[in-house]
């Protein structure tokens, strides 16, 4: 039985800049994996490679043994990976309900069943009462919540959350963390969370992968990673270590 997602030596250049170099990563079913690293570490690039928005220059990405290294985003979604974006990409002129229906239409061709499924998920993620609000009129926290709902509507096996909690107030962040926990607990999805805020990722993740300058620095349980000298250096810089 192959792992849910296998990233094998993924390398991606943008001109002379190496965004990812030989990054390997495995995600098992039902696991929450945190992908962390300072700004510019290559987290979003890796996400884009996995979700098909970009294609790696070399290396392989497999979903349950199927090679998706060169697949287009819509095919990756059909195969079972759904994602959200760092900069929200909700359908602004459509209502919350219509946004989620668009996601639910991935698994059916009929609007009726998609409508019913969308209402269920809107209730599940706590957007009930805002069905008829145009997405452009939501708060940032609700827009991010809507993206998660829309992604869930495509019935994925793996959910990729790109900074789903950044830019939120502490209360909103706590609510978002709770939502991710509920998705994991009640829907049993594997989730990969990109964040640069350590305080959010550490308590949430079963396992943490640290990227720095495009390379994998280390990975392991959150408690171990947080004590890792290299991680501290990457986040805080040499000066802090020198001062002790």
């Amino acid at each position: 039985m192959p792992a849910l997602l296998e990233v094998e030596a993924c390398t991606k250049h943008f001109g002379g800049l190496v965004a990812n170099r030989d990054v390997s990563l495995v995600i098992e079913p039902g696991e929450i994996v945190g992908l962390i690293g300072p700004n510019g570490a290559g987290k979003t690039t890796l996400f884009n490679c996995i979700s098909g928005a970009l294609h790696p220059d070399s290396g392989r990405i497999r979903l349950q043994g199927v090679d998706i290294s060169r697949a287009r985003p819509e095919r990756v979604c059909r195969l079972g990976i759904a994602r959200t974006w760092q900069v929200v990409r909700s359908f602004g002129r459509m209502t919350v309900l219509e946004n989620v229906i668009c996601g639910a239409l991935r698994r059916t061709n009929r609007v009726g069943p998609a409508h019913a499924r969308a209402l269920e998920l809107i209730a599940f993620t706590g957007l009930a009462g805002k069905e008829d609000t145009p997405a452009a009129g939501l708060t940032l926290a609700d827009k991010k919540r809507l993206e998660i709902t829309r992604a869930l509507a495509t019935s994925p096996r793996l959910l990729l959350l790109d900074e789903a909690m950044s830019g939120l107030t502490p209360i909103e962040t706590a609510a978002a963390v709770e939502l991710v926990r509920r998705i994991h607990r009640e829907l049993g999805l594997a989730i990969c969370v990109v964040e640069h805020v350590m305080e959010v990722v550490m308590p949430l993740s079963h396992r943490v992968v640290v990227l720095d300058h495009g390379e994998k620095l280390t990975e392991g349980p959150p408690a171990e990673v947080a004590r890792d000298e290299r991680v501290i250096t990457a986040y805080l810089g040499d000066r802090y270590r020198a001062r002790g």
Partner: protein
Amino acid sequence: MAASSPPGRAGRAQQVAWVLAALVAILYPIPFEQSGYVYYETVGFLVLLNAMLGIGWNIIGGWAGQFDFGPNIFFATGAYTAALLSIHFGWNAWLALLGAVVVSVIICAAVTYPITRLRGHYFAIATVAMWMIAQPIGATWELINGSRGLFLPVATGGGFVHGMLTMEFAGRGKGLGFYYLALVLFALTVWGARAAERSKLGFYFRAVRDDQEGAEGIGIDSRLYKVIARCLMAAIFAAGGVLYCFWALAVFPDQVLEVNWNILPMMAAVVGGLGRLWGPVLGSIILIPISQLMTATLGAGPLAGRGIDLIIYGAVIMLIAGWRPNGLLSLPWERWAARLLGRAPAQPVKS
């Protein structure tokens, strides 16, 4: 999504309004037929034709959000295909219409797929380029007789029913007949566009419009749905072209590829309300009679030949576009209707 009619009195008022509108549309040409002012039948014909084309353009421009500045190439392919089928093979007009729609959709799919990689202004430029390429082809291709054009036989007899079945009318009844032919095609277009709007297509078109990456991320093949949207538009433009060629009894490249077949449907959609099913219809009802009226009154007399009619026409469009950039349908019609009925609406009604 278009709300179904709200229950109660407002719903009944809406139903009454629809029935009245349908009656007006059906009865409109009768007084002109009686009194002999058949010119107004032609105005009605042009309103319906442009409304239909506007609905077609709205699918790609309003729902899928890809501005197409060359839809009239499918008006032309439709007119030419039907004319050729009718002249060389003696096909019945309705059969020729079906053939013209199929041919135009195939051509549209073939030429549109490559340009769906483009978006925004670049897509728009590519559609203009297609139109520019179509013009010399239309003017020189021997199969369609180049700039000498194709001529359809003039009907020699037959009554109203025969005319409706063959799109051939002899003598006085022509204005009336073509008004009703246009009404039939218009009604079919509205019905089809409404069905598309409420189906998966309607949702996916708007998703691609609002955020293409977002749409692809939830499994929507944006290129495929752009092609589908433009093919639906092409089908409607082809049907319009067929109607036009049997009306004009001739197909000339500079007539069917005339820029107004691009601009009027587009303006009707924008003035009435981009992305709303009835937007182009309202726009067409306003713009076409103004343009015809201006030409009929100001195009003659002391000011003739100075383009005063076109200047005023342009000014009207600029006024509406500047005052209501989201189109006239974005005005709070429901609130006004409720006030007219003498009560506040129980809840804001969405359309």
